[in-house]
C-alpha cells in the first residue's frame, strides 16, 4: 500500500486513453478509406481545391510544436524551468497559429459556397460532396482536439510556473505532451489524405 505516486502506471493509463482517441478518429478514417475507393477521381479533384501551402505550413507548425513539447520535458528534468516555460509557450503559440490558419481556410471555403449541405456541393458530383463533408468533420474534430491540447498545455504551463510540476514529478507535463503528440499524429495523416492526394 505505497504512497509513492506510480508514474509508470500514470503513463500507461495515458496511453490507454490515447488508444481511445486513435480509434475515435479511426472510425472517420474507415469512412475516408471507403469513400476514397468509391470516388477516387472526385477526391483528387477535391484535393486540388485545398491550399497545399497552408496545409504544409500547418503541418510544420504541429511538427515543431511536438518538438518543443518533447523538449520541454527534457528541460524540466534538467531543472531549467525558464526554458521549459518558453518551450511550452512555443507549442501553445504554434497551436494558436494552426487554429487561425484553419479559421481562414474554412472561411475562404465558406465564401466559395463550400460548406456542409451547401447547394454547390449537393448539386455537384457525389464524391466532391463526400470529400468536403469528410474534410469538415475530420478537420473539425481535429481542431476541437487542438483546443483541448492547448488547454492541457496551458494548464501545464501554469503548474510548471507554480513549481507543482518538477524534475521529480512531471507526469502531468508528460501526459499533456502525449496528448499533444496525438493531435500531431492525426494531422500527419490528415494532411496527405486531403491536401496531397493529387
Amino acid at each position, binding site marked *: 500500500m505505497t504512497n509513492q505516486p506510480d508514474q509508470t502506471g500514470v503513463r*500507461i493509463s495515458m496511453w*490507454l486513453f490515447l488508444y*481511445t482517441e486513435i*480509434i475515435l*478518429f479511426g*472510425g472517420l478514417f*474507415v469512412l475516408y478509406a471507403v469513400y476514397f475507393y468509391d470516388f477516387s477521381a472526385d477526391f483528387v479533384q477535391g484535393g486540388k481545391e485545398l491550399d497545399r501551402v497552408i496545409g504544409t505550413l500547418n503541418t510544420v507548425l504541429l511538427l515543431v510544436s511536438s518538438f518543443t513539447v518533447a523538449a520541454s520535458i527534457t528541460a524540466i528534468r534538467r531543472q531549467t524551468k525558464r526554458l521549459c516555460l518558453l518551450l511550452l509557450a512555443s507549442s501553445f503559440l504554434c497551436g494558436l497559429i494552426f487554429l487561425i490558419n484553419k479559421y481562414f481556410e474554412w472561411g475562404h471555403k465558406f465564401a466559395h459556397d463550400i460548406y456542409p*449541405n451547401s447547394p454547390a456541393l449537393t448539386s455537384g458530383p457525389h464524391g466532391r460532396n463526400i470529400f468536403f463533408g469528410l474534410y469538415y468533420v475530420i478537420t473539425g474534430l481535429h481542431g476541437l482536439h487542438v483546443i483541448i491540447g492547448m488547454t492541457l498545455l496551458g494548464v501545464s504551463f501554469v503548474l510548471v510556473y507554480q513549481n507543482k510540476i518538477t524534475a521529480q514529478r512531471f507526469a502531468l507535463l508528460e501526459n499533456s505532451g502525449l496528448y499533444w503528440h496525438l493531435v500531431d499524429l492525426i494531422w500527419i495523416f490528415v494532411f496527405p489524405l486531403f491536401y496531397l492526394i493529387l
Partner: protein
Amino acid sequence: MATIPSFYETPSPAGQTGIRAWLLTHDHKRLGLMYLWAILFWFVIGITVGFLIRIELMTMGRTIMSAQVYNSAFTLHGVIMVFLVVIPVIPAIFGNFFLPIQLGTDDVFFPRLNLLSWYLYMFGGGLAVVSLFTAGGFPDTGWTFYVPFSIGTKHNVPLTVFAAFILGMSSMLTGLNFITTVHRKRSPTMGWMQIPLFTWSLYATAWVQLLATPVISITLLLVIVERLFSIGLFDPDKGGDPILYQHLFWMYSHPAVYVMILPGMGVISEIIPTFSRKAIFGYKAIVFSSLGIASAGSLVWAHHMFVSGMSDTAVFVFSLLTFLVAIPSAIKVFSWVSTLYKASIEMTPPLLYTLVFIYLFSVGGLTGLVLGAAGPNIHVHDTHFVVAHFHFTILGGTGFAFFAALHYWWPKMFGIMYDFRRAYIAATLATVGFLFHYVPMFIVGLMGMPRRSYDYLPQFSRGNGLAAVGGMLLFSGIILMVVNLLLSFRKKTPATANPWGGCTLEWTVPSPPPLHNFSKEPLIKEYPYDFSDILKNPPKN
C-alpha cells in the same frame, strides 16, 4: 476479537458524513453499491417496459398502445437494457467492488476517475430520462438507430444518442481504470497466472470497453452531425452509403455483447469451483479463451448485416469467422462442467442460477450458430428468432449471471444473508417463465413473425399468448428475487467472512470489508483455486 470498522463506518475521503460520504466517495466498494442501486432501478424500469411490450403483443391489433408508442417502447427497452443495464451491470457493480480485493489491494488505480465514471453514468441516465419528454418524443428507431430513419425521423434522436455517448465515456474510463489496476496494483507476489478468473474476465472485458467503445462514440456523433448539418455521409442522394453506418455501428455493438457476457462468465468461473469444493478445470484454458473471445469478437461484426446489401464476399468471410468465436465459449462450458464432475457439490441459490446460466447460455450460443450461418440467416433475420437468441444469451446469460453474482456476493457486500427458500422459488419461477416466454419466440420466428412489429398474423397468436404467460412468470420471478434480497435488510441474519467456502481473497476479509480491504498484506496462494485449507476447515452454515 478487535473488530476493524467496516467500510460503511469509515468514509473515504475521511470526514464526510451522510449523503456526501457516498456522493463524494473514493471508495471502490461504495461506488459498486451506488452502481448497484442505480442499475437495479434501470433494470426494473427496463423489464417493466418489456412487460408492457409483451402485453401489447398478447393480442393481435391494438392491446394497450398505439403503433407509434410501440416503436418508442421497444427503442426505450433496448436503450435502457443495452446501455444502462447489461453493459455496466457486472463490471460496474461487482468489478468495482471485488476487483481490487481479488488482487489483494486497497482500491483501483484512479479512485477519483472511478467516481467520475459513476457521475457520467448517472448523467447519461438523466439525459435519457429527459429525452423521454422533449418535443418530438423518444426515438422510434430501435436501439440500433439505423440510418436513414434515424436521420429523418421527427422524433428527438440527438439527445438520446448523446446520452448513449456519455454512457460510453463512463464505460471507457472504467475499462481504463481496471486495466491500469490489474497491471500496476496487484499484490506484489501475485503473478498473472494467479489472478482469479473473475478478475481475468474483467481484464479481457476492459480491453474491449476501451477499444470498441470509441467506435460507437464517433458513430453516434456522426448521427448528430448528420441531423444538424445534413452533410450526406450516409445519404445515397448525396454520395453516402447507409451500409457504412451499419458497419461502424456493429464494429462496437458486436464486441459490446462480449463486454456483456465475459464478466458473467467470470462470475460463473468463481461460483462453480466454490460449490464444487474443487479447483476449476482448465484455469489457463479459461484465461486464454477469455482473451480469445475478446479478440475474436472484434472480427465478426458484419454477421448482423448479411441481408443489408453488402457483398457476398463479406457475407462469406464474416459467417466463417463467426463460427470460430463459438470455440472459446465452448471451451469454457466444457471446463465448468468438468469441474462439476465428481465434485462434492453443495446446492445454494448462486449455484442454481449458475447451472441455469450454463443451460440458457448454451442454447443461446447454439442458436447464434443458426444465425451466423449465412443461409439460414436469410430466413430468420429480423424475426423473433433473433429476439429469442439474444434474450437467451443476454438475459439467460448475463442476466442470470448477474442474479448469481448478487446471491454469491450479497453476504460479503452487506454482511447479511438472505432467505434461501424464497430465493429458490424466485429462481425457479424466473427460469420456467423464461423458457415459456422465449422458446415460443424461436418458433414464431422460424414461422416468419417479424421483430419490432406492432401487429402480427393470426398464425402467431398462440405463440404470443404462451409467451405472455411466460412473461408474467418471468417478471414475477425477478421481482420476487429482488424483494427477497431487499427483505434480508429487514431480518439482518448476519453472515460470516466466508459462508460459502470460497478461496479467492474476498473471502479472507470480513463481511463487509473494512475500508482498505486488508489489514495486513494478504497471503497469495500459488494457485488461486487451492481448496486444501477450505477442505480442512469447511464453513459451518
